[in-house]
């Protein structure tokens, strides 16, 4: 199953539409869309505007690959499961978010195992065509870097 998620804030129809078009062209029905307030026609696909925490965790668990906006929540959920993720940065110019921080996020996380970037919607299909080759990285620890934890513990104790 491919899990497609736009995160908890805003719709991301450019990504949603591109995945739906790819799925129809390939005859794929094993896709779950979490879309926000979408205007994309998703007839025939399982979908939801928003999922609660437990449902969304189940979707991450069940998916063989995830397609998501380049949000840290989506990326971390996949990295902690060792699951491959295709991330698509939201563009400020297209009013998909307020600034281009998702491009910066994508650039940094592209270096991490299991994270693949579709820099625009045209790159999503070609990546999904070779989904079988896109391997997840090693599962990351459930907590932040030891150094960050230690710094915060120190600060709290001061």
């Amino acid at each position, binding site marked *: 199953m491919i899990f497609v998620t736009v*995160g*908890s*804030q805003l719709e991301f129809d450019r990504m949603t539409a591109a995945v739906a078009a790819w799925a129809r062209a390939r005859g794929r029905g094993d896709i779950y869309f979490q879309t926000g307030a979408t205007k994309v026609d998703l007839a025939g696909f399982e979908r939801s505007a928003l999922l*609660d*925490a*437990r449902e969304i965790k189940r979707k991450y668990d069940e998916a063989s690959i995830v397609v998501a906006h380049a*949000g*840290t*929540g*989506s*990326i*971390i*959920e996949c*990295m902690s499961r060792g699951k491959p993720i295709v991330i698509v940065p939201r563009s400020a110019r297209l009013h998909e978010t*307020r*600034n281009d*921080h*998702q491009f*910066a*996020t994508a*650039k*940094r996380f592209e270096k*991490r195992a299991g994270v693949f970037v579709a820099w625009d919607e045209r790159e999503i299909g070609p990546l999904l065509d070779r989904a079988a080759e896109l391997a997840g990285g090693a599962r*990351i620890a*459930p*907590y*932040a*870097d*030891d*150094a*960050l*934890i*230690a*710094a*915060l*513990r*120190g*600060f*709290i*104790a*001061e």
Partner: protein
Amino acid sequence: MSNRGTPRRKRVLAVSSSGGHWTELRRLAPAFRDAECIWCSVRSEMRAEVAPDRFELVPDANRWNKLRLAWSALCVAWVVLRTRPDVVVSTGAAPGYFAISLARFVGARTVWVDSIANADELSMSGQKASRIATLTLTQWPELGPPLPADPRARAKGTAYFAGGVV
């Protein structure tokens, strides 16, 4: 003087909005192990997630809806007043900024951990928070100097690097 020699456990208020901000905040949990941690965020289902720790629900808001933003700020103020934290920690965004700006009125020290999403520059709320927070941390070494071990060597308003949530 019944507690002489054993300092009272610190009370930490850990605040964020939902999505990635919350995911990042939760990954800091081991830092609060010796404290009494109260979590504060915007979705009721998080209460079960943090149990047995205490959870305070506040309304979600972003910069695009001023009325909701004001209501959210009032609710966060109420939480800060009621919980009287020693330390406020936030990974963003709006609710965390409110909590940090209100914390000074209850004498709490504050730390803003800017989201790992902000890899090229500090977020807008992070830049605002850095002017009032006791300590500001970035998760990218390119965006700030290493955190000095000695608190007196830290400059307010500077974002320091001490590691990331991933």
